[in-house]
């Protein structure tokens, strides 16, 4: 079977669920395909023409049969729908506290940044047994991040963030493919994800990290780009303060509300006029073209680190139920990678749950 594999290796917690669904559908399909084939062959042989002037019987139909072969397939299809939706929910809802990795797709490479600042190109190192959430943006055209061994995939669309998560279960090296056609070297936009034992992963991490986390980089940018002159620590500047807002709903000046999430932060940097917070003037200039996708992700990470509601992508908790965002770091929690040095930034990480 090494030469002719029929199924890819199952290397994530989700893979088994997808495969179970797959086997069920294969079984149903095989049953119906064989049923039709056998009926066709039996009827064709049994009722073959024996005399040149023979005609078939005039049978016009049967309501009972029509109902049967409408309703039975419908029932099976609805079962598939429910099961498929269930698996999909699981595949698209990352658990709280997943380790976050930022991914930028560009023609034709994948750039990945770990929260503590370690960067990789076309390679992703993750520990076994730990949920990993990828937050992905694109610098140019649409790409798609596909990990066949984990049975997960998400398009990487310019102008917005899509996410993807998995929990690797088996150490090893597995393919990363770009599955959305993106130009000349689309088929070269591939890479490897390396799943390591937690201890090996820690060792790898301490070797590769620059020591400056994404949020730290974002904080520096926040100062350099002059954001801090309007968006201040307390509500006194010309722009709204960003502290403690993440994950909550924000009231806009046209009466609508918007969720303060990764996408909103991104949009507010590149297209600041689009959704103005109630009580403020649309005076912020656009930073489109001035900051790269990498830098945008750093800024997003920084703003997230200022605290707020649930960590990105988790099930939002109503503000009333939220504990006040703590300023200090929490052990474990979202950010995960511990032990890297921090600057003087307050609250460099988003809080845990």
């Amino acid at each position, binding site marked *: 079977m090494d030469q002719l594999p029929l199924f890819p290796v199952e290397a994530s917690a989700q893979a088994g669920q997808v495969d179970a669904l797959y086997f069920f*559908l294969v079984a149903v399909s095989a049953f119906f395909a064989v049923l039709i084939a056998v009926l066709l062959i039996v009827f064709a042989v049994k009722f073959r023409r024996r005399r040149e002037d023979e005609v078939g019987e005039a049978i016009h139909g049967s309501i009972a049969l029509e109902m049967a072969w409408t309703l039975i397939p419908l029932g099976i299809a609805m079962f598939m729908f429910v099961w498929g939706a269930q698996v999909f929910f699981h595949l698209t809802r990352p658990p709280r506290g997943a380790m976050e990795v930022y991914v930028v797709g560009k023609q034709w490479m994948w750039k990945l940044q770990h929260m503590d600042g370690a960067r990789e190109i076309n390679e992703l190192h993750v520990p076994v047994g730990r949920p990993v959430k990828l937050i992905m943006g694109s610098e140019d055209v649409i790409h798609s991040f*596909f990990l066949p061994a984990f049975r997960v995939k998400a398009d990487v669309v310019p102008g917005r963030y899509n996410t993807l998560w998995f929990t690797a279960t088996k150490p090893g090296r597995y393919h990363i493919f770009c599955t959305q056609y993106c130009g000349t070297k689309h088929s070269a936009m591939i890479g490897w994800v390396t799943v390591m034992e937690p201890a090996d992963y820690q060792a790898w991490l301490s070797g590769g990290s620059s020591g400056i986390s994404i949020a730290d980089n974002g904080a520096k940018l926040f100062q350099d780009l002059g954001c801090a002159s309007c968006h201040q620590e307390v509500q006194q500047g010309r722009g709204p303060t960003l502290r403690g807002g993440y994950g909550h709903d924000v009231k806009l000046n046209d009466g609508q509300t918007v969720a303060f999430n990764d996408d909103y932060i991104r949009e507010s940097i590149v297209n600041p006029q689009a959704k103005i917070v109630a009580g403020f003037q649309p005076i912020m200039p656009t930073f489109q073209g001035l900051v790269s996708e990498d830098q945008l992700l750093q800024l997003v990470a920084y703003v997230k680190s200022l605290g707020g509601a649930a960590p990105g992508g988790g099930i939002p908790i109503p503000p009333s139920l939220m504990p006040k965002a703590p300023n200090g770091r929490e052990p474990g929690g979202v950010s995960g990678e511990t032990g890297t040095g921090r600057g003087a930034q307050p609250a460099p990480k988003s809080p845990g749950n």
Partner: protein
Amino acid sequence: MDTITTTTGLNYLNNGYGLKSWLLTKDHKRIALLYLWSVTAFFALGGFFALLIRLELLTPAADLVQPETYNKLFTMHGVIMVFFFLIPSIPATLGNFLIPIMVGAKDLAFPRINLLSWYIYILGGLFTIVAAATGGIDTGWTFYVPYSTAASNSHVILAGLGVFITGFSSILTGLNFVVTVHRMRAPGLTWFRLPLFVWSHYATSLIMILGTPVIAITVLLVAVERGLHLGIFDPALGGDPILFQHLFWFYSHPAVYIMILPAMGVISEIVQAFARKNVFGYAFVAFSSLAIAIIGFLVWGHHLFVSGESTYAGLIFSILSFLVAIPSAVKVFNWTATIYKGSVSFESPMLYVFGFIGLFTIGGLTGLFLATMGLDVHVHDTYFVIAHFHYVMVGGAIMGYLGGIHYWWPKITGRMYPEGLAKFAALCVFVGFNLTFFPQFIVGYLGMPRRYAMYPEEFQVYNVLSTAGASVLGVGYLIPIIYLIWSLKNSPLAGPNPWGAKGLEWEIPSPPPTENFAVTPVVTQGTHQYAPSREVGIAH
């Protein structure tokens, strides 16, 4: 034999010979032949690109052609096969030829518009061929933005205009069919006496009319954005690339049904003729065509499950996608039941029917895999999808097309085709097809993405199988082209009704006279009654 059926005398083929008598003809039958030649030419061109694709994929590295060239090859293969072969194939040739005859009319409602639609088709084809010849286009047939508007260096606007223009040919054909079916039916030919071929073309026409304008405006907006930098789809200009995907698939998913519904109509006709039996559950087969056309418009979002589309939108599109599978299943069951207690013979059109039902069943069932959200995440944009839609479009639509061409060849040309060769070709097509595309389900589930010029070595075995199958398939397609042309001069005359089949087209001479019917026929019962009615279940 009927008094009006004579095989000698004036018919639509010998009624004028000059080039002008063809290029300026308003006769639906001659226009059908103009289409037949042109779609065959485009099929050959698209097939040539497919051949190069398969040869390149024989090895994991990009050694036959560079990735840049490979990208152009699969784009041109897709654009030509979808827009210039599959969409016009059955409706514009067999539909054009047969619908007026089947409804007992002398011509389509608007003969001049019919001719115009062919010229529009050719004009659109020229744009695309010029685009291909002057450097090609590399966006994939889906023209996804922002690649097509901002990144690609190829002739996107030219090819886009080709698709835009040829869309109008499709719209005009659909319009002509709808009006003809509504207004030109012979006296006594009520809706429930219509051949199922007409029903399926009616449903197809509805999709052409409602869907094609949307792709036209979408492709036009791509051209405008690319040419004038208006910000409509490109996020760098403030647009929304996902909106493009919605608009694109709003047409292009129903377009799949434009390809398969006419083939289903062909199958319904052939299965009745060679089982010498009226179809089982006429009303269910007829209405399932309409159901497919209508529900087919509501499922486009299943192409966007992994694009970041909201989960709730995804749920709705998923459940609707399951629903659209049901009418197709109903058809398959009804065709199978039609053979029961029939008088089955095995001429090559019937072999194509068996092939169609088998392959379409697999194609349809694997469609369920893609409608299942949790599973689609894994197989989306892999070779699984490629295998699925080739099972529907090649295993389904082209099998139907070939079956139909053989079945009506005696009517169209007045001559038979060589039956032995035809059976051999049908076998080649069936075997070659399965060998080509079945391995792609497996390699797709293994994770091989589509549109890859290079691929990891572990996928090679399946690709070699595919390429081997493709060569058999290619031979299976080449043989009919040769013997059908040969038969024009050399085969025995067919007579008006070589199959002993029912239907108005078999009541007139082969080839039919220019006016089809000397006098308008009056229909007194369903057009496909082989034996006196036996009252079982429902009856019409």
